[in-house]
């Protein structure tokens, strides 16, 4: 099984350690991982901002970069689900004929494809799980609070395999943090207000870290935490799943 690692633009530039942790985690589970060079962006920011057509060439590039892999795995639910749901339209192809059919968010891949039930991970800290909107409501990494369905959570299932960890969730368990791509700039006041509320909700759990499968939400909340010097930090879930005893 050959896996192509999809590293979204801001992870490449700002959070490369998330990419490194993804690589380590997957290889430790016996997966053959490759990173096709010179990836940039999947096109989601343009599309969500209302310029979907401006993402077409990026979609073609992505399609080309990843054509030789059995699976494409990325540590960002939002980017992955964009590829999954919008590439067939952008590329005017059937879903099964493009990348959309082979792409997985990394937690989804661990949980549903590799069916991991044991991890050699150690993280002796309290963490609050950030159930991101696109992870939850589009990629179905868990049951959204609005829906009447059996409760499940891919993220919590995986975190339960980590030794020493204590897992919490905010009171408004899946309220949006207010990032929303270009929303964060176009509607900055509302975006910041939502972010502040969300960070406070995470802090009230007593957690030391906010963790989740979307670095974009984490980046937005980290911006608020640093501005206000709040007593909590952010960490991508993959970094926790790849943490080991030193």
């Amino acid at each position: 099984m050959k896996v192509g690692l999809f590293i979204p633009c801001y992870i490449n530039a700002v959070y490369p350690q998330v990419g490194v942790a993804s690589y380590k985690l997957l290889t430790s589970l016996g997966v053959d991982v490759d990173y096709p060079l010179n990836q940039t962006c999947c096109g989601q920011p343009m599309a969500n901002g209302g310029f979907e057509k401006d993402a077409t060439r990026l979609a073609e590039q992505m399609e080309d970069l990843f054509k030789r892999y059995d699976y494409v795995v990325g540590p960002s639910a939002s980017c992955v689900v964009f590829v999954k749901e919008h590439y067939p339209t952008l590329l005017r192809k059937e879903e099964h004929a493009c990348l959309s059919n082979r792409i997985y968010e990394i937690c989804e891949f661990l949980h549903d494809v590799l069916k991991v039930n044991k991890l050699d991970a150690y993280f002796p800290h309290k963490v609050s799980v950030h159930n991101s909107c696109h992870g939850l409501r589009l990629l179905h990494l868990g049951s959204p609070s609005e829906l009447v369905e059996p409760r499940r959570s891919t993220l919590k299932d995986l975190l339960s395999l980590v030794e020493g960890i204590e897992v919490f969730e905010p009171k408004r368990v899946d309220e949006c943090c207010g990032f929303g791509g270009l929303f964060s700039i176009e509607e900055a006041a509302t975006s910041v207000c939502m972010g502040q509320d969300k960070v406070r909700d995470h802090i009230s759990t007593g957690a030391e870290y906010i963790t989740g499968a979307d670095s974009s939400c984490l980046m937005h909340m980290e911006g608020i935490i640093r501005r206000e010097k709040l007593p909590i930090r952010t960490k991508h879930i993959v970094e926790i799943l790849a943490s080991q005893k030193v």
Partner: protein
Amino acid sequence: MSSHAKAAKKFIADRERTAWHDQALYFVREKRDRMAHGVPEWEALRKTASRMKKHTISNLAYYLEMFERNATANGAHVHWAKDAEEHNRIVYDIIQRHGGKHLIKSKSMLSEECGLTPYLEERGVEAVESDLGERIMQFMGTPPSHIVLPAIHVKREEVGKVFEKELHTEPGNSDPTYLTHAARKALRQNFLNADIAMTGVNFAVASSGAFVVCTNEGNADMGTSFPKVHIAIMGMEKVVPDYDALALYVRLLARSATGQPSTTYTSHYKKPVEGQEMHIVIVDNGRSDILGNPDHVNMLKCLRCGSCINTCPVYRRTGGYSYSYFIPGPIGINLGMLRSPEKYSGNVSACTLCHSCSNVCPAKIDLAEQIYKWRQQLDPLHLASSEKKFIVKGLKLVMEHPAMFYSAIKAGRLAEKMPRFVLYNSLDAWGIGRELPDFAPETFNEMWKKGEVK
């Protein structure tokens, strides 16, 4: 900045009020959740409701004509209005024919849509709102800020002040029970004086020609009990095939709207009381156009429960008046665009695409997906923000050329700030409450090339 962003900024400047508004509405959303989770077959009900609506709007002429036939046979007069103007004229003609001067109204969003109250007032007919929240709004001289909870943005102290002036209540008394009693006492006179009653219609049952009005205050029943004339106004999508369909929607409506198992009153009107006249005005006002719009036809499934508004994290923090259309939230963004993109495109930015609205909608309307589609329309309609367009075009250029992307990061790293295409104006916006992220010393791409990823 979009019209919504501007108004939102103003609203949020009062953080205490924003927090209060957010909590008040989230409380309603939580009540909705509890109710939904108490019905194990909830998701199946939503699915059926959505399909039933699809069936009905696909056969709208058939069901509307069936309704007209049956309602006429029951003794009601059915009128058809192609737009707001015609609707207002029909209503006014009926009132005039009976020499009416005092209209008592129960809540109707259609009358807001058509601007009925000002139309009648210009012609010397007083229209009194009998729903408490609507009455408060009428005293305050402002439109409702929410389609189900018109005065949700008003604090009880403010209601107290308004009632002091309008109803001469005790100064400083803002006890809700006291104020409600005062309103009730005053409204009693309005009920007794009214010569024409008006209600909206929640559901019009085609198979029987009856229609149903849901209220919590019994004001529709009270209003229609005295006057000799009852005018019911309905958007043409309000028709449902039969009582089985009605039962389904009634189970969903109040649970979704306010977290109640049902509204306190679910009033069925079938035929005029002896000596009374009953008129039903069926209004198009753009609905036929929606019917012919495959991307947005689902909007005609809306039950007007307001659950998408209550769950919307943007609405909760920015209030109903931050939207330029009279209906706020996800439903309002979409209906506003269907009404006039030129007038209401300023609301399309008011969405993080969190998709909570699509999950709560009892008719499973793809509200968030439709907002995404509207965003794609802004540029072709020449309504896109030039700043956003500049950012996107810059982003596109850089991202399509990996060499440019990686050198932009290098440049940004050296300058310790974002590259120029992100910097343009938007840095200020990000920086209002957030620190900018630092670039890593090396991109993942560089690390991989150097064999540092192990």
